[in-house]
């Protein structure tokens, strides 16, 4: 849905200090409440082709799909997901097919792939979908929290108990993802829904940020510059570069300025009361 004036969005993508070109792609459109970030991989310039394809395909697919949606925030009984979530999931899966087809049919695109993280805002809620190790964080009243869980070898090793999260910071297996777009004909994104409150700030980012800057420092940077999202983006990129800038750094920031219910009453006031 259109969240103009209710959601403030800004983004920045930087090549970093070691790579010759930027393989990340970002896009956002408050007219449909959508933000997308992708971190491409693959030889020559195929990585940037893959990430751009992911971002463009998802944007386009969601834009088209929303036209067919009669009401925002309707829940599909069978899956338990809002229609918007199903749309975003479908868009990610179709984008995967598009990238995969290009990767197997065009020699210069062979083996390309990309991560993706996307957030769609509607009806005081959001849908988050991701594949790979690009992340979404939420800052809500001084609490900074990672919502997505990486599809990475490192995360698997943490889940299996070989590493504590603390040890993992110093681990060397940082760049192995267990799910990516374009590698296979099908991919299953993780899809979650969250309530959105006015004042919330969401950060979508590539691992060029999170490998270079500790969560705590990202949190402090957000709080310190929270009156200006452009400053937050610039500052996060600056710190990542100062710490080495070993990979491309991309950030998308979204702040909920005011409620955006799809009808007069807020979404949670319509659905609250099964036990009262």
């Amino acid at each position, binding site marked *: 849905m259109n969240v103009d004036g209710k959601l403030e969005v800004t983004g920045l993508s930087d090549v970093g200090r*070691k790579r010759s070109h930027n393989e990340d792609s970002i896009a956002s459109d408050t007219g449909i409440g959508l933000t997308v970030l992708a971190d491409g*991989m693959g030889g020559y310039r195929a990585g940037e082709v893959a990430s751009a394809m992911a971002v463009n395909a998802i944007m386009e697919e969601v834009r088209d799909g929303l036209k067919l949606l009669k009401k925002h925030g309707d829940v599909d009984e069978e*899956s*338990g*997901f*809002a229609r918007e979530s199903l749309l975003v999931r479908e868009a990610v899966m179709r984008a995967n097919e598009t990238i995969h087809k290009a990767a197997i049919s065009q020699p210069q695109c*062979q*083996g390309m792939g990309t991560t993706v993280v996307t957030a769609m805002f509607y009806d005081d*809620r959001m849908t988050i979908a991701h594949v790979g*190790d690009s992340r979404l964080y939420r800052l809500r009243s*001084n*609490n900074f*929290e990672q*919502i997505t*869980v990486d*599809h990475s*070898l490192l995360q*698997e*090793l943490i*889940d*299996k*108990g*070989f*590493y504590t999260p603390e*040890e993992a910071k110093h681990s*060397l*297996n*940082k*760049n*192995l*993802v*267990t*799910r*990516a777009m374009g*590698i*296979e004909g*099908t*991919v*299953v994104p*993780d*899809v*979650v*829904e*969250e*309530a959105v*409150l006015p004042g919330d700030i969401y950060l979508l980012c590539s*691992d060029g940020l999170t*490998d270079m800057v500790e969560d705590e420092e990202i949190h402090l940077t957000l709080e310190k510059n929270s009156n200006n999202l452009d400053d937050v983006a610039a500052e996060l990129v600056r710190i990542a570069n100062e710490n080495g800038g*070993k*990979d491309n750094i991309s950030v998308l920031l979204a702040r909920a300025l005011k409620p955006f219910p799809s009808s007069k009453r*807020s*979404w*949670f*006031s319509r*659905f*609250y*009361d*099964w*036990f*009262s």
Partner: protein
Amino acid sequence: MPASLILSLNSSVLGEFPLNEERITLGRKPENDIQVDNLAVSGQHAAIITILSDSFLEDLDSTNGTFVNGRLVKKHALKNGDTISIGKHELKYVNDEASTEDNFEKTMVIRPGMAGHAAAAAKVHTAAASGKPFEAAVEGALPLGKIQVLSGPGAGKELELRKALITLGRPGVQVAVITRRPQGYFITHVEGSQPIVNGQSIGAQAHSLKDHDVVELAGVKMEFFVMGSSS
């Protein structure tokens, strides 16, 4: 050269074993890749999983335990020079090619489940050399949860948590949402004071719900259950 384990007893070297298989087992029985014939060693004592240039040690519920540098471990990420002790035998882990801090290689794709301890027969493949299909993250594999009201006029009432996002409480008083994530159910504060789970305020962070957790919200007590598989 792959990493290797150097087996010794009382400082005399008994053999060197390259870690050139994804999973290498260690134990008293002959079917192990590294056989250590000593009664202090369990039949199947430990396994070493190697992924690219890194290796991980896992004790297979051995009777006498596995120690690394004198510390009892269940699971351990091996570092060059680590000494593994099982009974009186020692295995030194040698890995000259361990990736270094500065080795920021290009991102690669690997099949999920590589860190699995049992039948991790998967092969690493880079984005350029993909072959086998990804193990699909099975949807609906997440067990369904439900909550049952324990107190107040609605006591006994139940709600299956089928929706991705469920709101509980009374607007203007106290509201929380329960979200269904691939990792399970999480409860997050939305409005009013913070919800209480098992007698403790959960704070502003999303809080993972476990089977039989008791949630207090807007003066109502309720219990969270994990049901069997949803389908």
